[in-house]
């Protein structure tokens, strides 16, 4: 296929793909909101005085760490109904919410681990170290945005599944490589600068902290990743 023709096709489909990317952001923000709320509860429980609470929180955190997001996605798609009827009103349970819930499970583990560290630092009077939670959280948001592409496998109309729609609609297999690369560029342009900014924020915070945090602690704080 002609390069010019390919470029023209990509430009023509850009608004459609951009609309898909908005969905990636919406799914990710929802996942972060749910995950942060639940993860905060676990983090507070972990720093509590009662050992029972600490143990329960650790167990739940370990659970969220070991469950694969990708499998949960299929689980929710297959097992949870698509609409509920309560008092004659039909409430939909859309696929994108299921994707957010699946991703939120990973966020719960991350927030539980990192917020409990931050809470301890705060109580120990080390405010700067506690504030490291913020760039860490934002970097994790970037990871979740990338993971939100997996929502395409359960039929959410985000950017990757819209790529497939574009390829199907144009019927040109030669376009495939370019459409996928184009979508990849979207992710890179969103994720890379944000990640760079957060790395910078982290370094500034670290230099401001009177007693410097060891590199290993920072590495450990970043460790909780998602698939």
């Amino acid at each position, binding site marked *: 296929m002609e390069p010019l023709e390919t470029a023209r096709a990509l430009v023509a489909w850009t608004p459609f793909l951009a609309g898909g990317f908005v969905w990636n952001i919406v799914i990710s923000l929802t996942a972060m909101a749910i995950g942060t709320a639940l993860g905060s509860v676990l983090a507070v429980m972990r720093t509590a005085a009662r050992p029972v609470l600490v143990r329960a929180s650790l167990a739940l955190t370990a659970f969220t760490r*070991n469950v*694969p997001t990708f499998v949960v996605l*299929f*689980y929710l798609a297959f*097992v*949870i109904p698509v*609409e509920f*009827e309560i008092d004659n009103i039909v409430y939909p349970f859309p696929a994108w919410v299921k994707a957010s819930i699946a991703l939120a499970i990973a966020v719960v583990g991350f927030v539980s681990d990192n917020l409990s560290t931050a809470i301890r630092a705060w109580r120990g009077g080390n405010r700067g170290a506690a504030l490291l939670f913020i760039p860490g959280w934002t970097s994790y948001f970037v990871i979740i945005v990338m993971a939100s592409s997996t929502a395409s496998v359960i039929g959410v109309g985000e950017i990757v599944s819209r790529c497939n729609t574009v390829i199907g609609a144009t019927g040109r297999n030669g376009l495939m490589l370019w459409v*996928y690369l184009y979508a990849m560029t979207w992710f890179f342009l969103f994720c890379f600068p944000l990640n760079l900014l957060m790395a910078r924020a982290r370094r500034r915070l670290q230099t401001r902290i009177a007693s410097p945090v060891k590199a290993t602690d920072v590495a450990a704080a970043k460790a909780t990743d998602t*698939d």
Partner: protein
Amino acid sequence: MGLRSIAALFLILLCGLSSGEAAADRLDLIRKRGTLIVGVKGDYPPFGMLDIDGGLVGFEPDLAWEIAKALDVQLQLVGVTSANRLQKLEEGSVDLIIATLGDTAQRRRIATIIEPNYYASGVNLLMPHGKPVSDWTDLRGQKICATQGALFNRPMAQRYLLDLQLFNGTRDAKLALRDGRCVGWLYDDTAIAGDLTRQEWAGYGMPLPSSMVSPWGMAIALDARGTAFERALSDIVAGWHRSGLLMEIERRWNLKPSAFLFDAHELWRRRTPGGKLLCARQPDGEWPAECRNKAILTSTDVGGLQRIGLLVKEQTGLNVTIAYDDYDRSHFLHGLLVTLELVALCLAGSLLVGVAGAVAIDARVPLLSRAVKGLATVARMTPPLLQIYVVFFGIGGVVVQTYGWTFDGMAVTALCLSLYAGAANIFAFLEAAAHLREGDAAFRLRPSSLRSSLPAAVRVAYGPLVATLVNVVKATGMASAIGVPELISASTAIVADQGNADVMMNVLMVTYFLIVLLVVRLFGMLERRMVRHGTA
């Protein structure tokens, strides 16, 4: 925390999640909603396909319009695939599917199929001309591409001992045939006939006789059997056979006139000597036996382990086919094996990429280090699923056209996940090296001194490394997106055949959970050994 307590917790959560209920009277719901939601195919021209505006059109969408008109409601069409159509029905996201669904005794156990049937088709093989194949038995042990969820996959595989390669949709299966991953594509003769009219399949043909001719039925949820909704649909289809509307729509889409529709038109208009319609409802509400699908009226015989399994199903509602059904069990175990292979490949690959990349960057070779760092950044800042698509479909498509080489789905997945996770490992190693330089300014990850420097770096970076490796294990399921027959593919294929989503999804989840737990424990053991032998 103990393994047992995690497992107990897990089960509690699962029980809470897995209950769902369908609406009792669907026709009321549809009238209340004012819209009929029909699942049709988007990848099956001319029965169901996308037009240039992305709308669903074809033989089956036309039928859906006729039904909406008859029920006096709006119509919403939803695209479904062979793999998910019965699932969508069961979960209630569509009211009805008209999606090239073959009517079989087994399907009738998981959905309510509307009688009379509205079309019929058989199964055939699309393959390049010039292959010395004249009979199905010539294909024994050969690789055959197939689309997940098609009802003939299993009997054809069993009868002719085909080595089926299952793909997520017809597009992927056809691409695989084009790329030479298999001898032919096993699919419905009506669909293949549609493809053969197109230029892109010149040089291909359908040399074998069609097998397993079976009628197609519209389907509604299993619990809608005997409802007003079923009766209304049934009457509508009977009316079509009498008026000849189906033949008219068949002509509209340039389909070869089918013997099935011709015969049905005759049958449903036939009158008894008394002048009444032969195919009229009996007092019990059923159609007379001569107007029904003959294949369904004969019962299938079961025995042995299968009888016990079906007994469990009848008693408890749990259809654990992987316990009693040989085909499903070997399918699932094969998936487990593939997943474990993938796990091993990804773990080794991402460690290798991590070490090699970190050494290349830490060596500070002017151009190389910069290039590796750039690549690692791109690999880390783009979604692995997209990377897999780019390599498998994008680059793989170009390579097969130019050189004739086909990419292996498992290798592509292992490569992409190794790069994605490996990139994270590179940065973990580099950070560890920087930390070690605080104590020993001359510390470097050099190839010559790797034997002493690597263990030190691993010890410092152990936490982040393990986190990344555990994540790559969790991500191996992505291979299912490109048709690698691993655990998720196997489980969804079984659900598509058997309709036992609740059982299979729980089995899948627990299996994956145990795999991850195993890997976590393995790394915990390694860490304890490292501490014991630690020299740092």
